[in-house]
């Protein structure tokens, strides 16, 4: 591994804080390498999650158009995606699509896959948010003379948004957890790096996997606590 045992000189923003003849311990080297690989997980999440939201909005929008065949197609897509594994979709995009001359590099295909996969889940979130608005609200807004687009914009959307915040945040956690799977098509994320390091440092597998687990906990635990807060905050009815 590059850098093991090199002299370590830290030049931070505050200037030279610490330098010395201290050899890097294997542990700090593991942490540094894995954390560097963890950036891939972040970049995947940051790229895929907004796309997921947009794609899901498009799906939900298509489904709300009163055109039966379209609704059936979108419904079948959502259900089919939701009942088959992310790993399979990833392999479809990474190994299957090149046969139709659609080629992405590993990172892009991971983003595309996660958008297609989690978009289906997020579309369900939107749908259930809209459908959980009580009928009486719709009737009341009709009585106030709101109709069509203006009712959607002023009544349905704000309410549905509030309802959909906690499950959306849950979905964000799922996207982040899902980034671990991309290791299996050789995107060099933290899990991939971990399995590679496993071959070199066979005896250190507990440390390597502890660092990987801690990485996911350090990011995921605050997110899941945030979801709990949001759940309490965004109680609508």
């Amino acid at each position, binding site marked *: 591994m590059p850098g093991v045992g090199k002299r370590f000189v830290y030049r931070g923003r505050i200037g030279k804080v610490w330098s010395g003849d201290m050899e890097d311990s294997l542990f700090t080297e593991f942490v540094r390498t894995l954390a560097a690989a963890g950036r891939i997980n972040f970049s995947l999440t940051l790229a895929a999650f907004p796309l997921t939201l947009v794609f899901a909005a498009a799906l939900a929008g298509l489904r709300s158009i009163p055109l039966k065949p379209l609704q059936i197609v979108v419904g079948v897509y959502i259900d*089919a995606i*939701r*009942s*088959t*594994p*992310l*790993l*399979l979709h990833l*392999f*479809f995009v990474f*190994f*299957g*699509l090149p*046969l*139709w001359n659609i080629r992405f590099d590993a990172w892009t295909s991971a983003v595309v896959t996660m958008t297609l996969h989690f978009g289906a889940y997020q579309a369900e979130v939107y749908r259930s948010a809209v459908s959980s608005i009580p009928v009486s609200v719709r009737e009341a807004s009709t009585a106030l003379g709101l109709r069509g687009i203006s009712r959607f914009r002023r009544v349905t959307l704000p309410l549905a948004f509030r309802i959909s915040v906690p499950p959306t945040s849950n979905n964000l*956690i799922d996207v982040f*957890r*899902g980034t*671990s*799977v991309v*290791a*299996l098509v050789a995107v060099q994320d933290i*899990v991939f790096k*971990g*399995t590679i390091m*496993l071959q070199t440092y066979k*005896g250190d*597998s*507990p440390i390597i*996997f502890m660092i*990987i*687990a801690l990485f*996911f*906990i350090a*990011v*995921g*635990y605050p*997110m*899941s*606590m945030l979801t709990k807060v949001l759940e309490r905050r965004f109680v609508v009815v």
Partner: protein
Amino acid sequence: MMALLAISFKDIDRWWSYAPTLWEGLQITLKVSICAMALGLAIGICVAILSQSKNRVIGALVHVYVQIGRVVPELVQVFIWYYVLPDYGVVLTPFMAGVVAIGVAFGPFVAEVFRAGIESVPRSQWEVASVFGYSRARTWYRVVLPQATRNVFPVLSGYVISIFKATSLLSFISLREVFAVARNEAALNFRYFELFTIVMLIYLALAIPTSVGLKQFSSRYFRW
């Protein structure tokens, strides 16, 4: 596009030739899924019951297990059971590691679902049960858990499908389940699209009857 849709008898013969190995893989997938479901359900129910305990240590432990288990990806947990435990002298077969990993990974989700279900059973049920002279264990078993199960059954059946899906990860610890078999076949003849489509249809063929069946079951069994 039409060229892609054109199917010849040769294709059908080839698809048929996949059947024996895929069937073997499917059996392993089913076995792993069912064992993992049983384990996950057992862990989930126990943890949900423990979460109602007034003991703060138990409460903290449950919180740690549930919150950590929910954020560490299944794949990492699978690798931990398969690659890390041998360092401590515990060598699991891929099948065992898969069952334990998936079961433990889904325990927290099941526990959260059951906790919500248990909390949805009114306190008065406990009081009525004690009036009838039920012991605590009997109250759990005969009064609270059946009602909790009924309340959470739809959510729970969603996790059954998730466990089917999660078993696909076990192809990476050399368990020869259906996805691993398909990958092997595809590596031989490069017909990735075809094989992955077949596997996708197999997963759908597992998931759709399961969810329909569970819905039927709950409408029959939970009529009270």
